[in-house]
C-alpha cells in the first residue's frame, strides 16, 4: 500500500493511497504506520480521503495505533468519506478520535495554541 507522508510542523500527515483497507492490505498498512511511530513520530494525522472502504481488520488496526500512541502522542483523522464514516459510527470509533473534514482544518486544530 502506498502511503504518502508529509511533515507539517510536528505533525506527520499520512495519506494512504488505496481504495480499501482490508484483510489483504491491513498488515502492510499497520506495519508502515508502526514504523513511522517507532521513528519518533508521535503526532499523526491520518488522511483517509482516498479510502472507500475499511473492513473491521482495518478499523482494528487504526484502534491499535491509537493505543500505541496512548499517553505519548496523538492521532487524529480527516477526510473520511461517508461510507467509511458510517463504519466508524457503527463501531462507535468516531467517539475516540478527533475527526476533521480536511487536512487543512485538522492541521490548524492540532497546532498548539499560540
Amino acid at each position: 500500500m502506498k502511503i504518502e507522508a508529509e511533515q507539517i510542523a510536528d505533525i506527520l500527515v499520512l495519506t494512504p493511497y488505496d481504495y480499501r483497507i482490508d484483510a489483504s492490505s491491513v498488515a502492510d498498512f499497520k506495519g508502515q504506520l508502526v514504523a513511522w511511530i517507532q521513528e519518533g513520530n508521535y503526532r499523526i494525522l491520518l488522511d483517509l480521503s482516498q479510502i472507500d472502504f475499511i473492513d473491521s481488520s482495518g478499523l482494528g488496526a487504526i484502534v491499535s495505533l491509537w493505543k500505541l500512541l496512548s499517553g505519548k502522542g496523538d492521532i487524529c483523522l480527516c477526510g473520511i468519506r461517508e461510507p467509511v464514516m458510517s463504519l466508524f459510527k457503527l463501531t462507535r470509533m468516531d467517539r475516540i478520535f478527533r475527526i476533521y473534514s480536511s487536512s487543512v482544518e485538522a492541521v490548524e486544530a492540532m497546532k498548539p495554541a499560540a
Partner: protein
Amino acid sequence: MDTTALEPLENDPKSLRESLSRHLRYSLGKEFQSKTIRDIYLALTLSLRDRLLEKLLETEARYQAADARRLYYLSMEFLIGRSLGINLTNLGIFDACHTALMDMGIDLEEVREQETDAALGNGGLGRLAACFLDSLATLDYPGFGYGIHYEYGLFQQEIVNGYQKEKPDHWLSKAGPFQIERTEESCIIPLYGRIEHGLDLNGNYNPMWMDWRVIIGVPHDIPIVGYGAKTVNYLRLYAAKPSSDFDIQIFNAGDYFRAVAQKIESETVSKILYPSDTMDTGRELRLVQEYFLVACSLRDIIRRYLKNHEGFDGFPNKVNIQLNDTHPALTVAELMRILVDEHSLEWEAAWNITQKTLAYTNHTLLSEALEKWPVSLLEHVLPRHLQIIYEINHRFLGEIAVLWPGDTDRLNRMSLIEEGAEKQVRMAHLAIIGSHSVNGVSALHTELIKTSLVPDFFARWPERFNNKTNGITQRRWLLKANPLLAELLSETIGSEWITDLSLLRRLEPFANDPAFQDRFRKIKQANKEQLGKIIYQTTRLKINPDSLFDIHAKRIHEYKRQLLNVMHIIHEYFRIIEDGIEPAVPKTYIFAGKAAPGYWAAKQIIKLIHNVGDIIHKDRRVKDRLKVVFIPDYRVSLAEKIIPAAEVSEQISTAGTEASGTGNMKFALNGSLTIGTLDGANVEMLEEVGEDNIYIFGLKTSEVHEMKQTGTYRPLNYYHEHDSIRRVMDAFWDNRFCPQEPGLFRWLYHHILEKGDDYFHLADFQSYSRIHETIYTDYLQIPVWNRKSILNVARMGKFSSDRTITEYAREIWDLTPVL
C-alpha cells in the same frame, strides 16, 4: 431522456399482444415460430412487469409529494404463491390478456401453470403477510413488506409408501421475472466480533464493536398491485451476498478455497426458509437470518426517511414498523443501536422513538413456540445488541421494581433474561417492551394473551394490548380461486364485494331462492369434479364427486388434531364393517399439509392417514362409501383448487391453541360449512354466521385450562367408559392399520393413554362424532344445506383482510390512504 415523454402503456388486447411479441423477440431473443409455452409465460410476465413498474413509479411519486407516513411490515415469511393471475386480475387486464393470447392461439390457463409458487412461508403467518400486502395496496395505503429472499422456499412434499419425503424447493430457478434486483441499494451488515470497552474523548464509557464480519444485503423488489391498479407498492426481499472482500482475497491472499468457503457461508444466510417447529437445529443460522432481515430493513427504512427529513424527532410520525411475530424482535435492539451509536441520540430520546415506531403482533399461544435465544449465542453473534438488551432490561426492571416493590417473582417473570442453566433472552418480552402496541389475531387469542400468556405485561400497560382479528383477501381466495362463484355473486349482487366484502350480506335474501341455490350447488359440484381430477392426477385415486367432501388442509401439527379426524374416520370404518351401520352419505375425507421435517409425530400422522386410507379402500365391505385421500405438496396454488371444492372444513384444534386460523375463513368464504372447536377465529365465525350455520363441538378453552390445572383429565377413563374410543385405541395397539409393520402406531396408544394426551383427543372424541352425525343429517336435506352454505358466504364480510388492515391503519399505524 425525459421519462415524462414516454407514452403510457395501453392495456387493450392489441397492445398486450405487441408487448408480448416485443419481449419475446428483444428480451428473450426468440422468433414467435420457435417459442415454447415457457417463453410465452416469461414474455407475458415481462409485459406485466412493465405495467406494474409504471404504476409503482407513479405511486412512489404520489407518496413523495404527500410526504406520506409509511408502514413497513417486517416478516420472516411471505407466502405469496403465484403472482401472474392475481396481477392480471388486480391490473384489470385478465380478460384483455386472455383475448390477446387466444388471438395468438395460446391458452392463458396453460401459461399460468408455468408459474411456480413462491413458497416463502410455512403457513398462516406467511400467508397473512401476503394477504395484508394485497389489502394495503388495494386500500391505497403506503405499506410495504420486508422479508428475506430465500433461495429455497418451503420444501416440496412427496409421499413415498405413505411417508413424507422432503425435496428442496429451488423456486428461484423457475421464478418469473416479476422481481427486480436493486444492487445499488445493497447494504453492509456486520455480525459477530467483540466489544472493546473504553472511554470516549469526553471520558464517558464507550463500548466499541470490533472485529465483526460483513455480509451484504441485496434487495429484490416484487411489485404488489392493488385491485383497480391505482396503487402499486413493493415487497422488498433481501438476499445475502459476500462482501467484495471475497474477490480481493482470491487475488491477493492466494487462499482461494478459504475465500470460496467464506463466500458460500455468507450466501447461506438467505439460502433456506426454516420450517416451523425446528427450533433445535441450526439455531445460529436462524438467529443470523432474523438479524439480517432486521438490519437490512432498518438501514433501508432510515435511508428513505433521511432523504427527505432531518433528525429523528419526526421519525415516528413518518415511519411505522409492524413486527410479524417475534422473529423480527431484534428490531428493538437494532433501532436503539442505530439511534444511540450511529446517530448519537440520548438513550431516553432513542427509546421514546423506538417505542413510538414499533408495534408487535403475537401469533402463538404455544409456549414452546415463543422464541428464546441463549445469551451466549447472542453474545457471540451480536455482542453490541446483547449489551443493549441488558441495558433495556436494567431500566425496565428498575421501573417494575418501583411499581411493584418487593415483588421479585414478578421481576423474574417479566425480565428479558430467563435465568437457568442456560440464560436465555425472551424475544416476546423484548418485542412487548419495545413497542407501543401489542396485538393478538383473534378476540379469543387476545384475551388469552392478556390473561394467560403475558398477564404481567398486561397489568403494566393495559392500553398497549389490542385485538386485530386476522383476515384474508377475497381477491385471491374468491375472485381468483373460485371464478364461477365470483361470477355468480357479481351477477346477483354486483361486483362491489371485491373491495367491500361486507356487501356479501346482500346475498342473504337469495339463501332460500331455489334457482339461486341450484346455481350455487352446481358451482360447488363443478369445483368438486375439478378437484377430483387433481386427486386422480396426483394420487391415482378415483373419488366419487357426489360424496361429501370433508377437507382438513393445513400444516400437520398435533395441536391442529389431524389425529382426531383420523380417529373418527377409523370409528366410521368400524361402524360399517363391525356394527353394520351404513353411513348416511358417502364421504371423502381429504387431507393436505406438510409436517416439519424434524417433527416425528406429525410425520407419523401422515403415515397413519395413508395406512388408514389403504386399509379402507381395500376393504370390499366399505363399497366406496368411505374414502380417505392425502393430496401431496400443499401450497397456495393447490389451496386455491382445494378450498372451493370443500363442503365441510375441519377446524378442530384443541381450544386455546390456535391463535386465529385463516384457512377457516377461506373455506367458509367459498361456501364450506365449518366443523370446529371454539378456538381462534372460529369463535367470531360463529358470531357472524350464527349457530345454525356452523358445527361447533368440544371443550371450551376454559374447560381445557381447568382440566389441565386440576389434573382432572384422565384419558384412560375415556378409554374405559366408551366402547367406540376403546375400539379405535385398541386398533393402534393391535396393528390393524399396519399389519406389515407391527408396532408402527403403538406410540399413539402410549402417547394418548399413558402420557396424558396433551391435545385432549379423547376428551373431544364423543362430541366430535356426534356433530358429524348432525352434519350428515343436514347434508341430506339439500335446500337446508344449500341455505347454510350460502349464508356462510354471505356472512364472511368481517373476515376480509381489508377490514383487518383498516383497523391496523386506524388504531395502530395512524395511516391514511394516499391517492
